[in-house]
């Protein structure tokens, strides 16, 4: 056991480090390092423009989308090289936030299902940061139950082969900045729910697409509602066969859960630093026995995630496929962060209620408190993740389903329950 690079990995790391040293936007480093929880990283300039500039620079030097083939604008690097890149990119990685969904999920889906010509047109500008993509999946009626979605795609009756889209998506991250979207629709309500879906891609500037930011519970607006009113798109923008949308969506969702070694934040290092400074009865908080017990439990969750990531990287480094242990990442990080934020405020006493200039660490824990409920829901809720662990890792049977073989239109929904 060791934490050392192989000679090849060490050489690659040096190459990466030299390039980043010479090319990264150094003037943003301090700001990115101190960036508050849940913020986009930079405030001194337009975060989208700063992200696009960094992505373009990386792309020109061959450092964009390391996991993609070169012909589509990628770097054709191994998984372990990708991990090393991420470690070396450090705080600058946050600049790529606007591209995470496009590079990690939409791109791989397009790569699997689009025509060669479409791939060569769509993917390079996505890799280089010229285009931003969003994922138009969740709906008011279908979140965890994604296949319950109701946005309709109907063949135009003019013989053009075009599709007419009507409906509403919700929780679409970054839709307001996006050039393209990956859209899943219902094309046949008369067959069981998973069989009547079809996937498309479309320009977000297509007439009839209306993006409305959602004011979230924490006051910010990272997510959007996207309305479709008689949006017409050509059949050529279909991905996979008509009725194959569920299968296509699984490509996307599998990629969503493949972010390995990314080590989600729990907020523990920040809480630990706070407890070194904070006082309880005139003594440093870390000297208090009850504080120590709490901190220790947070600490082992943080380090457990860290070393779970390293076990996955070990597998990659040996050319193996990591095991299912990485599936615990978001489940642990989300709940830990929420509990930790509540505890940090508790240690602040009555002043914990405040988020102003007196709040420790610029109000980081208050921001965490208000944002963390979303972490436990987005990208697979805690409950869905537990089902996945139970069924795919532990091999338990699926729940009994009352909606699987019923035509979609006959499935009861909230608000229009059928007897």
């Amino acid at each position, binding site marked *: *056991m060791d934490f*050392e690079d192989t000679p090849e990995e060490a050489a690659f790391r040096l190459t990466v480090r030299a390039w980043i040293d010479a090319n990264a936007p150094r003037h943003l480093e301090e700001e990115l390092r101190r960036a508050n929880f849940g913020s986009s990283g930079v405030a001194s300039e337009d975060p989208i423009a700063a992200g696009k500039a960094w992505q373009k620079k990386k792309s020109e030097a061959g450092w964009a989308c390391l996991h993609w083939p070169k012909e589509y604008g990628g770097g054709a690097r191994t998984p372990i090289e990708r991990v090393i890149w991420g470690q070396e990119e450090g705080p600058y990685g946050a600049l790529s936030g606007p591209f995470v969904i496009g590079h990690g999920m939409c791109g791989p889906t397009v790569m699997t299902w689009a025509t060669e010509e479409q791939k060569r047109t769509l993917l390079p500008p996505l890799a280089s940061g010229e285009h931003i993509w969003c994922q138009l999946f969740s709906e008011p009626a279908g979140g965890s139950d994604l296949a319950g979605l109701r946005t309709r795609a109907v063949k135009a009756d003019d013989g053009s082969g075009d599709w007419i889209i009507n409906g509403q998506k919700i929780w679409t991250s970054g839709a307001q900045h996006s050039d393209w979207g990956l859209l899943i629709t219902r094309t046949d309500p008369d067959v069981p729910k998973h069989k009547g879906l079809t996937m498309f891609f479309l320009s977000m500037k297509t007439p009839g697409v209306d993006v409305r930011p959602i004011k979230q519970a924490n006051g910010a607006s990272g997510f959007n509602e996207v309305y479709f009113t008689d949006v017409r798109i050509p059949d050529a923008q279909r991905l996979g066969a008509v009725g194959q949308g569920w299968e296509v969506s699984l490509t996307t969702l599998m990629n969503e859960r493949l972010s390995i070694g990314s080590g989600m934040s729990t907020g523990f290092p920040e809480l630990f*630093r706070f407890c070194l400074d904070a006082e309880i009865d005139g003594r440093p908080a*870390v000297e208090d026995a009850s504080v120590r017990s709490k901190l220790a439990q947070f*600490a082992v969750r943080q*380090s457990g995630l860290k*070393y779970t990531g390293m076990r996955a990287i070990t597998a990659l480094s040996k050319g193996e496929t990591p095991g299912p242990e990485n599936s615990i990442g978001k489940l642990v990080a989300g709940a830990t962060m929420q509990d930790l934020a509540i505890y940090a405020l508790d240690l602040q006493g009555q002043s914990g209620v405040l988020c102003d200039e007196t709040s420790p660490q610029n109000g980081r824990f208050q921001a965490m408190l208000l944002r963390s409920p979303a972490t436990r829901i987005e990208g697979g809720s805690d409950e869905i993740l537990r089902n996945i662990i*139970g069924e795919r890792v*532990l091999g*338990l049977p699926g729940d009994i389903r009352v909606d699987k073989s019923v035509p979609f239109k006959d499935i009861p929904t909230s608000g229009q329950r059928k007897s």
Partner: protein
Amino acid sequence: MNLDFSDEQKQLRDQVRRFLAERCSPAAVRAILEGGERYDKKLYAGLAELGVLGAAIPEVYGGVGLGHLELCVVAEELGRVLAPVPVSSSIYLAAESLLLSGSQAQKTEWLPKLASGTAIGTFALAEGQGRARPDKIGCRVSGGKLSGTKLPVADGCDADFAIVLARDEQDKVSLYLVRLTGEGVSRQALESIDPTRGQARIVFDRAPAEVVGQPGDGWNIATQVLDRAAVLMAFEQLGGADRSLEMARDYALERMAFGRPIGSFQAIKHILADMYVSATLARSNCYYGAWALGSGAAELPVAAATARVSATTAFQHCSKNNIQVHGGMGFTWAFDCHLFYRRSNGLALALGSLSTWESQLIERMCAGNVETAA
């Protein structure tokens, strides 16, 4: 980056697992639970023969001279089957004490016997209720003779010698080696929540004691020994946690209620998923501890406490929920769930309680630097 065991270490694991499947069945553990012997002598002799007791003891002292990573692998397997043998007392604690600070004569005399299982050692720290602290050590050595009472001492009735923390004539805490079979020692077996592991009260009345390591350095040495033992015991706990999860999963697949396997209910599935999460976190933290132990890293105090806290939490969590998933059957004497529940709660207290280790973890992180936290 390599946070995994080597192929050879994995082969050792398979070998030990096969051996234990044959030699340490649930029936063998029950035989100890039901009384008769305090530990499984045949199994212990078998483990010695296999060479695993001496895995981390150098060949010059009669061991196999592999290393601590191999001992971690063995510990996990012992934990999976709740092996009713004094390995933690004799190997993780007594042998490690001697390896760390024993004199040449002490090592030459005792280590070969510990490796071959012909002698058993133990470690006597606690003196009754409450958290152990240097100022609570009441046992005293005067003129080379130890007097005082230690309890509980794991495997105290079966050990040939104990490494004992006691005050010297200058009132400093030192470590002593005391033969338990000689004069001035009386021992009494104690009842515990886990009868598959022996506990004793040992009363010393002017028992001959020889110092181990530097006089006055006892607490410091004991701390280092406990750190090493904590990593090894964390692997036992990890093995127990994994096995508890497997038992619960298997039962959830086989037990039918309301016309379906109970594992198809989310109420059960989510309990099992949470057990998997805590066992996985513990495994990763244990590997961190193994790395620190195996490489002699300066981070060992933090890594050991991390592994210990995580593995204690995981084993307790998994063993109690194993009973819960089994329902009423899990609370019968006939089902094995309670054996794991007993062991998990026993191991949680051996080497010092969870809250003690939690406190030490944070103290050590403060003494190190903030970087450790990231």
